[in-house]
């Protein structure tokens, strides 16, 4: 493994390389969005989720940021889509084995999730 890659956990690399659930949902159904942006903290994240019977049936993300940010957004989209526990910044950091200085970016991810949730609450 290259030296630069060693600066990231295997999970971050895996998610960064595949960027699963990046892009847009296939058209159709009821869709909600959640976006948060803090350019000065180096992150911009947007989720898009299809709602079926009050639950998230599918989810995608788009993001601008460092590898940790992209990985965290991908991980969060996966959790949102599969109905896992709602990820928060600290949980993401733990799961991605991220250094402390990245927490600010994970908070942006958390904010985007919160925005999604609040839009979901409104449409119901």
């Amino acid at each position, binding site marked *: 493994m290259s030296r630069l890659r060693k600066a990231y956990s295997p999970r971050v690399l895996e998610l960064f390389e595949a960027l699963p659930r990046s892009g847009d949902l296939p058209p159709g159904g009821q869709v909600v969005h959640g976006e948060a942006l803090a350019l000065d903290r180096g992150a911009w994240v947007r989720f898009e989720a299809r709602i079926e019977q009050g639950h998230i049936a599918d989810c995608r993300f*788009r*993001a601008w*940021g460092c590898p940790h940010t992209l990985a965290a957004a991908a991980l969060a989209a996966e959790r949102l889509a599969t109905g896992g526990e709602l990820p928060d910044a600290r949980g993401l950091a733990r799961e991605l084995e991220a250094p402390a200085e990245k927490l600010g970016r994970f908070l942006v991810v958390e904010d985007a999730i919160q925005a999604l949730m609040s839009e979901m609450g409104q449409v119901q």
Partner: protein
Amino acid sequence: MPTERSAVYLDYAASAPLAAGAARAMAECLADAGQQANPASAHSAGRAARVRVEAARAQVAALIGAPPESVVFTSGATESVNLAVLGTARAAPRGRRHVVTSRVEHRSGIEACRQLEREGFEVTWLAPAPDGRIEAAQVAAALRDDTALVTLMHANNETGALTDIAAVAALCSARDVPFHADAAQSAGRIAIDAPASGVALMSLSAHKLGGPKGIGALYLRRRPRPALQPITFGGGQEQGLRPGTVPTHQAVGFGAAAALARESLATEPARVRALRERLWQALQAAAPLWRNGAPDPAVPGILNVGFAGIEGESLLLELDGRVTTSSGAACSSATGEPSGVLRALGRSDEAIQASIRLSLGQGTTAAEVERAAAAIVAAVGRLRAALPEGALSRIA
């Protein structure tokens, strides 16, 4: 099993690979017990080492058209710049407490001038034009009766922009102000005649031109010789300006690299410049993008380019194993601070983060340029595919 293709090295501005001829000369020197004595020793072994050191000094001096006596060896350009800046200002006549420099200097120049501020000097920090250049006219306007020193880089390490050092030197000489040029990024890459340029002092770094890391040089004009207070004290080595055992193998490697670079000056600058422009053309496939700094006047090997919507750390990881390059200045990337040079050019923090410095040199081939461009275009494309709407225009 597919063999892994090695990454294209486009980070010559951070450090050039050691030239094969320099590596050979150093290895010979390190293997030959006869050259391992202290070059300050009186005995034959010491004298043999001294002869090697002096031959190397002549090679380094020749690269900038200077006599050997005008070159002092240091541990690198960082030390040369510090010795020149701190040494000249501290040795300035009483009452001369003003220094002229720019905001786009290498960190060694910036920090040495900040130290002078702490010592009570007043520093004028010139700002570059949008093309990254500092103009002689700006220096003319900044010079004062109490100016002790003007210090500017010859070529900028991030944009490659060149300063007209002869014009600045003429202005300074007319007012009896010593002018130091940091030529770490230009020496060996374009032709330089230090005595003809009229500069009082010039800093050089071996590892930027194919020599080893850990050795540099300071050129001092012979007449009038700039007054200099050393920053370290000890044995009388290097004309009393830079004490410490001179490392023979390091000098030999520097000398060999300087000689090779000098030979290449007839053809390399044009070749490297053409490759750089070819790279720029090939990168158009990754538009929207922009160039930080102008293609001319500049050293031939640096292309600083920003890609709309891109975050530097992700781009570097995406390029890992394919293209070796730097975001921001290599010298500051250890600290993770955004580039002060690009900021001085008026770029936003996001635009700075979206920029990488691609730097080419002696070993760079056309095939490598094509390979690197393809890798960059693909990487930018993949990252952009995941961007939120609006990011392409906002991150620019």
